[in-house]
């Protein structure tokens, strides 16, 4: 381990106590891991003895939330340095694990494999973007921010650029990005608990909120850090176990990340077969006709709805007149009352139906061939060549935005304030990425293994012999998984199956034929991923408000106790606010989360990196650059993203710039941010010597505070 590299040097008192602290930590987490395994095994035994699924789910839910809350209570503190940055003594490895849990959200844990299943190669933009961003963190931010050694990201902007405006802009951007993200996490908690334990969505949110609050409310960063380490261990075991099992089942080799290339080949071969399968073509034809029908309806929705109503009424009347069985009368009655009430409702419903039918009239259920890089064909005619270029450009743009966004999300960056030294900050980024990569290189394997299972074992099976997991999940939530025999041949075709992305991870244990206790474990893992991310985000928001707004801008004389108390109150308020928003099930939350990356990238990255690497960057330039970057990103999204367009009442036709999708708007915002900062800096007065000294101070690990200016520097 790199931590031993310096063992030859004279170790001071601090180093010794740090080593002792780390040994104690190793001890605690070893026992914790053993205890957790024993707990899972005990539940497995109880399941064999007949414990019901409901109970297993509930026990998992309550036990893990109770555990996290327990850690939180044990770590409670009122000390500012403990509360904001865990006393700056988290060893690199543990900070790596905590960052891993902080980083991997419900979307990574549950959604990623599904995205990869549905989109094939294009989904890999998320894998590259969400890992490659850590290179930027390591090179440009983490070590320097650690040397700076304050409490929040706006702190750095405020000190480096001077004045309250950069600080305030930083606070606004941090809250904006973090809040959308935290709503998505709490929403995820509700979904997971609802699906796996059968408790109501709202109750699930409430339970999750309790866990989050007990943890971060009392102990701040200290509690969040040690809980996140515990959560990382739960989530990584929960993710790897079903995938390894599935790999053993299909290939006999327990290292899915190494072996799934051959499964991918088989999937590709099977894709070619399915594209020419006559029954598949038949189903596609039926959907094509359905799409055409809907298109006709959409031309004159008012008349079409009227005609539908007349037809349904007539059917009902005929049935009643002929004394048909009560069941069919009842069905006809329901069909009539289920018709859309107004033309607007009908229009929306039909548009969705048509989009579905359109997708299902294409080969492979509308999915691209899994291994095919980009759409279109670079050697084909002008249209397919253009399609190829646009698809490739969007892939690269998305990778760019996700990477730069990763390197700019405040809740990740503040984690590097918590390690003891610059050296450990650098090491810690390596550990973080290692722990994150473990999950991210497994997700593509899971997607391919499930696809192999579906394409070869499920497709073509008679409807009455479908595997149990299909019927079971169909019952839990038809929007996740449903099958309909469209061409009435008694066999399941690929295009007769509708899948929601989340099912890939949630059903993986059942697909592998594992006992239910593993499904419970997966749910606990998803919960851990969502809770850990929510903890980190809430803390970021609360610290920004209490430290940057209240302490630095409103009342610089506030006592530490007062600041910490205020932070706790704010945390409570923000958490309740987020839960309130999440309980309304906002439909476009997924878009907002991906958009948060573009926003963070455009707002923070240019100002932060230039602040460290270019002494000439001035305060006014940074403020303008942040506004310009954020503004450009927001402007593009408002012009092009359907939900934003409706929010801001934009009616002119969508004009994409170079075909770039709205999710990657940061690809315009980031360069604009850089350009504005550089140009305005050169036009304004050089920053004063104190600021230049600060930059020097940040650049050299051992440079003392005395060589810069007195006071204000915590930690070493």
């Amino acid at each position: 381990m790199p931590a031993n590299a310096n063992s030859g040097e004279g170790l001071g008192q601090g180093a010794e106590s740090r080593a002792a602290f780390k040994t104690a930590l190793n001890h605690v987490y070893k026992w914790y891991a053993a205890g957790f395994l024993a707990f899972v095994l005990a539940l497995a035994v109880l399941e064999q003895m007949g414990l019901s699924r409901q109970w297993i789910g509930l026990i998992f839910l309550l036990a893990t939330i109770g555990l996290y809350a327990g850690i939180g209570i044990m770590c409670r503190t009122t000390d500012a340095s403990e509360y904001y940055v865990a006393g700056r003594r988290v060893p690199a490895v543990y900070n790596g694990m905590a960052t891993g849990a902080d980083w991997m959200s419900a979307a990574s844990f549950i959604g990623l494999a599904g995205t990869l299943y549905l989109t094939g190669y294009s989904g890999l933009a998320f894998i590259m973007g969400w890992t490659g961003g850590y290179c930027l963190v390591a090179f440009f931010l983490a070590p320097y921010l650690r040397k700076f050694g304050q409490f929040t990201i706006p702190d750095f902007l405020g000190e480096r650029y001077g004045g309250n405006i950069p600080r305030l802009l930083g606070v606004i951007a941090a809250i904006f990005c973090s809040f959308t993200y935290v709503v998505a996490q709490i929403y995820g908690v509700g979904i997971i608990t609802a699906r796996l334990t059968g408790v109501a969505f709202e109750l699930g949110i409430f339970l999750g909120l309790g866990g989050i609050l007990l943890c971060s409310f009392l102990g701040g960063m200290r509690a969040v850090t040690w809980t996140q380490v515990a959560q990382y261990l739960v989530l990584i075991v929960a993710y790897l176990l079903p995938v390894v099992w599935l790999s053993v089942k299909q290939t006999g080799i327990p290292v899915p990340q190494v072996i799934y290339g051959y499964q991918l080949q088989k999937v590709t071969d099977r894709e070619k077969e399915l594209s020419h399968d006559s029954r598949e073509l038949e189903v596609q034809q039926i959907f094509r006709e359905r799409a055409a029908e809907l298109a006709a309806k959409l031309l004159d929705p008012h008349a079409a709805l009227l005609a539908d109503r007349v037809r349904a009424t007539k059917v009902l009347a005929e049935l009643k007149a002929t004394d048909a069985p009560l069941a069919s009368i009842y069905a006809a009655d329901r069909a009539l009352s289920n018709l859309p009430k107004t033309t607007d409702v009908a229009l929306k419903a039909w548009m969705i139906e048509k989009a579905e039918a359109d997708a299902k009239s294409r080969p492979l259920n509308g999915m691209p061939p899994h291994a095919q890089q980009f759409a279109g064909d670079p050697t084909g005619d002008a249209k397919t060549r253009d399609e190829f270029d646009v698809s490739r450009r969007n892939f690269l743009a998305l990778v760019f935005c996700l990477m730069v966004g990763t390197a700019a999300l405040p809740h990740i960056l503040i984690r590097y304030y918590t390690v003891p030294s610059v050296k450990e900050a650098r090491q810690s980024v390596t550990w973080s990425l290692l722990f994150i990569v473990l999950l991210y290189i497994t997700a593509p394997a899971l997607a391919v293994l499930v696809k192999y299972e579906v394409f070869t074992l499920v497709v073509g099976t008679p409807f009455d012999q479908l595997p149990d997991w299909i019927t079971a999940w169909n019952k839990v939530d038809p929007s996740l998984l449903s099958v309909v025999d469209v061409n009435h041949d008694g066999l399941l075709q690929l295009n007769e199956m509708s899948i929601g992305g989340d099912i890939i991870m949630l059903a993986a244990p059942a697909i592998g034929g594992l006992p239910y206790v593993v499904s419970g474990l997966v749910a606990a893992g998803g919960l851990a991923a969502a809770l850990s991310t929510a903890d980190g985000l809430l803390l970021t928001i609360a610290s920004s408000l209490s430290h940057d707004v209240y302490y630095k801008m409103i009342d610089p004389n506030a006592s530490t106790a007062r600041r910490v108390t205020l932070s706790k109150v704010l945390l409570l308020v923000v958490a309740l606010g987020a839960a309130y928003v999440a309980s309304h099930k906002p439909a476009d939350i997924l878009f907002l989360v991906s958009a948060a990356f573009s926003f963070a990238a455009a707002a923070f990255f240019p100002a932060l990196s230039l602040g460290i690497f270019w002494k000439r960057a001035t305060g006014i330039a940074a403020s303008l650059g942040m506004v310009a970057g954020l503004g450009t990103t927001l402007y593009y999204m408002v012009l092009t993203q359907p939900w934003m367009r409706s929010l801001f009442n934009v009616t002119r036709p969508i004009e994409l710039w170079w075909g770039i999708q709205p999710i990657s708007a940061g690809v315009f915002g980031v360069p604009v941010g850089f350009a504005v900062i550089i140009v305005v800096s050169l036009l304004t007065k050089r920053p004063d010597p104190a600021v230049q000294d600060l930059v020097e101070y940040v650049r050299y690990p051992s440079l003392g505070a005395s060589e810069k200016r007195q006071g204000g520097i915590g930690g070493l």
Partner: protein
Amino acid sequence: MQDNSNRRAYWRKSFRLTGLLMLLWFGVTFGVSYYARELSFDFFGWPFSFWMAAQGSPLVYVVIIAIYARYMERLDVAHGFEESED
């Protein structure tokens, strides 16, 4: 000033290393992805560019950061900028 030239040398070396690793990062990420269609020869079952995007580049990133951390540690010591251990 002795101190200043030492600082400049340290910063220059650190900057050069960062540049070099960024180049590698850029090639692995955007270079390979740009030519993904061309680079689809068989690689243990995967088309090469698929493997790079799914497994290869994340692993390369880990190595890049590890090299950076190790080299910077040495650079700190060589220029007398290592932190005291307390």
